[in-house]
């Protein structure tokens, strides 16, 4: 299917591409690689031809160039720039485009003999490329129909044994290779549950066949292994509706380099911007943006980053710098050929920053006061003020409580623990405890939970595996869970990396302090955390005690009197740590912009690069310079001009989704909508299980843990805190959610309650226009249009005898409008 689709696309869009080509002026032609050493008849490397335009921008001309060979007996080149050896010797390839040429010197050897095959380097990657060993097929833990391969070929020795020895050896028949069940199934000659995976005429088939015919060698002990994989180019600006040929090279431990473009696996992280074919050909589509292509070969990964600018002349714009953020975003827009939206209005900004920093709507009084303030610096003043408000600490405590999994699973006995942990988090945020210390206090928490609230974290983090998963995802922005059982498929992390972190957990000791009359269920007892002088964690791969080892670091040993966790945190909070500051900077950026610079925000893989690396780098640097002050980080983000842009797109940035050329609207999260509805209707709520006095939390953002029953909050997507991922919170639309807002006794009850806002407004002597305008400002931060005003008036006239009904209707409509439910 895939080639057909791309062919159709090419056909469809061929015209505009060539129309643009009419203006194409090339000043230089470069070939990659410029020299090739071919070894053996199967070695057919890919070329990539780059033209340099008069504007200095490069363009891929691999498929447009004409290729001639100085000695056609030695080799040939196909139209796509792939080189096929024919005989030993040397020859030059001349690539021509217009008046320009590029020369590639090629030396061919080893074609006279069949080259020895190495199972791990050559056969295993074929099984990966054809997805035989994917988790959906034979790679799953129980195999498929009695045939099991290691996931993505990370254990070639095991796969080799399986292929040769299982099923009484009938899978492979060296005497008659084509009759091997392995080939018959794979080529779909006999029925195969996974369908036909390769053609009998394909290179894959020929290689597998040759391997079987050669007696299925595993290879020699001294055979080189793949040390790294590189891709050419690493980054490139590519026009829309264009192509870019990649060349992927495997670098072996003996220094040899082999072209593996056809054998590598590819995946694009933004398939709306660019797709990638089997042969390493990137195809850009009609969307401006950036895409990263992951390249994987034999357990090694590399990444190509493509930038696809808007066609045509780049718009000119000035962008005043307000914080360190702005130069980096502006640079990215210029690169993409787009321009930023206008600055948001004061009304929009006020509502936005209130909701983003405090999770709270500004009151009518605050709105009019702010709008009347003539000060030039009132936005900055407001930001400073909001960061000192109690709402800020509650709102961000709620955010951290999600990923720190502050939950009691409905067990009343655990409430004192979760309440005090939540309180501790909130206090840390209010006092702006340096983030590095905040994390240390949690990870190294020690003592009795009644005196040391952060130890409550260890109520949900009870195993070495949970420790690694949560620490890496929450504090390092790395999703390591895959590496528990196998090499991470999209990262360099191995099982040894995983168990290296797990080992730091090995000496965490727990005591429970029984409470009379409380039956122990493992979690509901008072707990005390201490450090054991011995103890360890078993590496599941080696079945031996795992060494403590930080990511990309050396193994460490810790004396019996020390707490290993301290060493681990030392490594994390070191300003040179490449993960720690970036992870939280990205998390906070995503909070304000709705999308992380790395997205998903806690999946900071080498193969999932940031959309603006310099920006992320700058934010992390800024955080470290400010001694890990999260308030300072927020100021850097929120005081930037970039954050203060309007959400309304202009002609140039309307399809922008990743470079922040405008503010992306966000649906308000469950607790914020709940509180806003209570606020707008003037119908506060109380929550079951909390005191009813005047100090009791009346607002959902103040709730300390997950165990407060509320259908409203559940249906709007409040997380159950089952994972350390912010993605557990649902901010999309659902039918049940809309139904609840539109037509529930709960919401209607709040609107129509005696003494609520609707009744007050009905009795309020001010003019209806004035009151309706106030409601619009409160809910949507804008004034009503004349049509909206007159429609509201009509409804009020209709209910002249009972104006409360009309105000109920108006409030209902406003509460259900997107202008209310979104931060925009």
């Amino acid at each position: 299917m895939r080639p057909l689709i791309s062919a159709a696309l090419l056909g469809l869009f061929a015209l505009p591409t060539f129309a643009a080509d009419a203006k194409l002026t090339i000043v230089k032609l470069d070939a990659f690689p410029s020299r090739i050493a071919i070894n053996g008849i199967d070695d057919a490397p890919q070329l990539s031809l780059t033209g340099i335009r008069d504007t200095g921008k490069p363009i891929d001309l691999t498929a447009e160039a004409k290729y001639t060979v100085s000695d056609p007996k030695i080799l040939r080149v196909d139209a796509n720039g792939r080189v096929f050896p024919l005989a030993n010797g040397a020859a030059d390839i001349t690539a021509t485009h217009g008046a320009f040429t590029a020369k590639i010197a090629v030396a061919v050897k080893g074609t006279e003999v069949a080259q020895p095959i190495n199972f791990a380097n050559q056969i295993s990657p074929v099984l990966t490329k054809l997805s035989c060993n994917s988790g959906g097929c034979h790679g799953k833990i129980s195999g498929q129909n009695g045939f099991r391969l290691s996931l993505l070929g990370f254990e070639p020795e095991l796969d080799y044994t399986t292929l040769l020895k299982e099923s009484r050896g009938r899978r492979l028949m060296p005497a008659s290779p084509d009759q091997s069940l392995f080939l018959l199934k794979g080529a779909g000659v006999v029925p195969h549950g996974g369908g036909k995976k390769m053609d009998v005429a394909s290179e894959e088939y020929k290689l597998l066949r040759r391997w079987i015919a050669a007696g299925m060698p595993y290879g020699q002990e001294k055979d080189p292994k793949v040390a790294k994989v590189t891709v050419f180019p690493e980054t490139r600006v590519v026009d829309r509706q264009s192509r870019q040929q990649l060349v992927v090279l495997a670098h072996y431990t003996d220094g040899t380099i082999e072209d593996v473009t056809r054998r590598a696996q590819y995946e694009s992280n933004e398939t709306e911007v660019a797709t990638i074919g089997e042969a390493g050909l990137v195809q850009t589509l009609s969307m401006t943006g950036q895409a990263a292509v992951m390249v994987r070969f034999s357990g090694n990964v590399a990444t190509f980053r493509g930038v696809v600018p808007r066609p045509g002349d780049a718009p000119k714009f000035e962008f005043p710098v307000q914080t360190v953020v702005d130069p980096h975003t502006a640079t990215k827009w210029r690169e993409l050929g787009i321009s930023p939206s206008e600055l948001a209005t004061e009304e929009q900004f006020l509502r936005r920053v209130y909701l983003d920093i405090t999770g709270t709507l500004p009151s009518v009084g605050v709105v009019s006061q702010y709008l009347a303030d003539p000060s030039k610096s009132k936005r900055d003043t407001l930001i400073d003020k909001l960061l000192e408000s109690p709402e800020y600490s509650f709102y961000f405590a709620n955010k951290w409580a999600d990923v720190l999994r502050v939950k009691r699973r409905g067990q009343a006995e655990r409430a004192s623990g979760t309440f005090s942990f939540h309180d501790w988090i909130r206090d840390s945020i209010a006092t702006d405890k340096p983030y590095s210390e905040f994390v240390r206090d949690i990870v190294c928490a020690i003592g009795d939970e009644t005196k040391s609230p952060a130890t409550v974290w260890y109520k949900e983090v009870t195993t070495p595996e949970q420790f690694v998963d949560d620490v890496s995802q929450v504090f390092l922005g790395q999703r390591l869970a895959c590496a528990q059982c196998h090499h991470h498929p999209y990262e360099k992390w191995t099982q040894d990396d995983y168990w290296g972190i797990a080992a730091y957990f090995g000496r965490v000791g727990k005591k429970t302090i029984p409470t009379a009359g409380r039956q122990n269920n493992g979690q509901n007892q008072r707990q005390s955390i201490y450090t054991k002088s011995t103890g360890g964690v078993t590496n599941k791969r080696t079945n031996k005690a795992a060494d403590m080892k930080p990511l990309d670091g050396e193994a460490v040993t810790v004396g019996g009197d020390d707490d290993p966790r301290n060493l681990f945190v030392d490594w994390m909070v070191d300003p040179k740590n490449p993960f720690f500051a970036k992870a939280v900077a990205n998390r906070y950026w995503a909070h304000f912009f709705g999308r992380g610079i790395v997205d998903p925000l806690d999946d900071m893989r080498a193969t999932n690069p940031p959309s603006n690396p310099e920006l992320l780098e700058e934010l992390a640097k800024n955080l470290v310079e400010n001694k890990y002050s999260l308030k300072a980080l927020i100021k850097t983000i929120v005081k930037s001009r970039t954050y203060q842009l309007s959400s309304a797109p202009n002609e140039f940035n309307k399809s922008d989704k990743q470079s922040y050329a405008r503010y992306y609207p966000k649906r308000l999260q469950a607790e914020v909508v709940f509180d806003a509805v209570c606020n707008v209707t003037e119908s506060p709520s109380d929550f079951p299980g909390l005191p009813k006095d005047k100090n009791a939390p009346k607002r959902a953002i103040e709730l300390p843990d997950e165990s407060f029953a509320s259908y409203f909050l559940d249906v709007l997507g409040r997380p159950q805190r089952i994972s350390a991922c912010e993605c557990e919170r649902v901010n999309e639309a659902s039918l049940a959610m809309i139904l609840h807002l539109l037509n529930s006794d709960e919401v209607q009850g709040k609107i129509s309650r005696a003494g609520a806002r609707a009744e007050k407004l009905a009795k309020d002597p001010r003019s209806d226009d004035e009151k309706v305008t106030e409601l619009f400002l409160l809910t949507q931060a804008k004034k009503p249009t004349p049509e909206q005003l007159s429609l509201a008036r009509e409804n009020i006239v209709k209910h002249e005898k009972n104006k409360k009904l009309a105000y109920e209707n108006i409030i209902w409509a406003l509460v259900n409008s997107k202008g209310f439910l979104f931060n925009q």
Partner: protein
Amino acid sequence: MFQVLGSTQRFCDGLSRRNFLQVGAFGAGLTLADSLRVQAASKAKLAKDGRPSKSMKSAIFIYLPGGPSHMDMYDVKPEAPVEFRGEFKAIDTNVSGVQICEHFPLQAKMFDKLSVIRSVTSVDEHSDSLVMTGYPDRVNKISDHPSFGSVISKIRGSDAGAVPPFVSLRGMSRGTEPGYLGVAHRPFTPGGPGNANLKLAQGVTSDRLDDRKQLLTSFDDIRRDIDTSGTMVGMDSYTERAIEMVTAGVVRNALDIKKEDPKTLERYKGIEQFLTARRLIEAGVGFVTLSYGGWDTHGQNFASLKKQLPPLDRAISNLIQDLHDRGLQDDVVTVMWGEFGRTPKVNMNAGRDHWSPVMSAMVAGGGLKMGQAVGASTAKGERPKDRAYSVPQVLSTLYGAIGVDPSQTFPNGSGRPMYIQDDRDVVKELV
């Protein structure tokens, strides 16, 4: 079979985000009028009455809590010694060679419309976790796999129409939890908090709702093109459907069995839940689960079953016959089972205890091959004789029957792509 939306993929939120993105791709630069057209187009997938298109198949899961005795229902052993075979006799069915318990006479007459798998292996847990999610409770305590109904809810997404995709007539349990698919995919439970939302909220008349809609249309004028995620457009289409749900009341009507013919009500007397399930499925619900009776018969097994089997027999035969009469037999797959089987040897209290090595599952419809007894237990009903099937394999077969690929993945909280089922071999005899 309907096409599974999208292919397997690994990003957070997988499927529904992808669907939104597709809308979003058009969404850039949409005017309000355009977005209404997008809605209209998406509505085309729904029939006139707001039901999902008929090409979407549905499932009914009947859960027999406590673990019903396999040897006294679908796997009778008349040849076994008396302390094993128990008190009940076997009767012939209309499928030659297949016998079931004498207290299932109605099913015996229509066994060509049913199949039973007699060699299902289970785990000894009093939980609906395994039969609803494919993973036992002890696994789900850590990894939170979703209920079958939640998967249907996730896959139907915005195509679910003006009906909830997943209804539980037996409240909430581990087996109805959406796990890593997120709370949006919890079941709708009549009697639960969402139910009241189906009728007009207190003090709101339909006239007043019209007034409000008019105000909402005017006040909800934010530019849809500022949101390229598609959430706003998605909400618009839900708003329309939610209002339709309240005014047309498809689900409310489905739940109101009094609307049925008195003769039908008589047929379902005492087993009304089965009628409700049928009505919900007819209204377009994708997945209904209900439970019947109590089957943890450690003592007085036979006395208890003598009371419970006849109404259950009537329930199954009514439900399956009704689905056939409506031509829905291939569009709806039904399964009935409990947590495990019961000890083949009768204990001193005339009871049978927990027995997880083997149990039976009754399956009907969904285009599967009917009129069979698949697999067998050993002579004394102790364990699978030849081909053992695991619960996940049965579930994979049911997923396949309604057009869901069980090898599809959704990401969990740590971003790991999770297969709907890991153990995906199917019950070959049924497909």
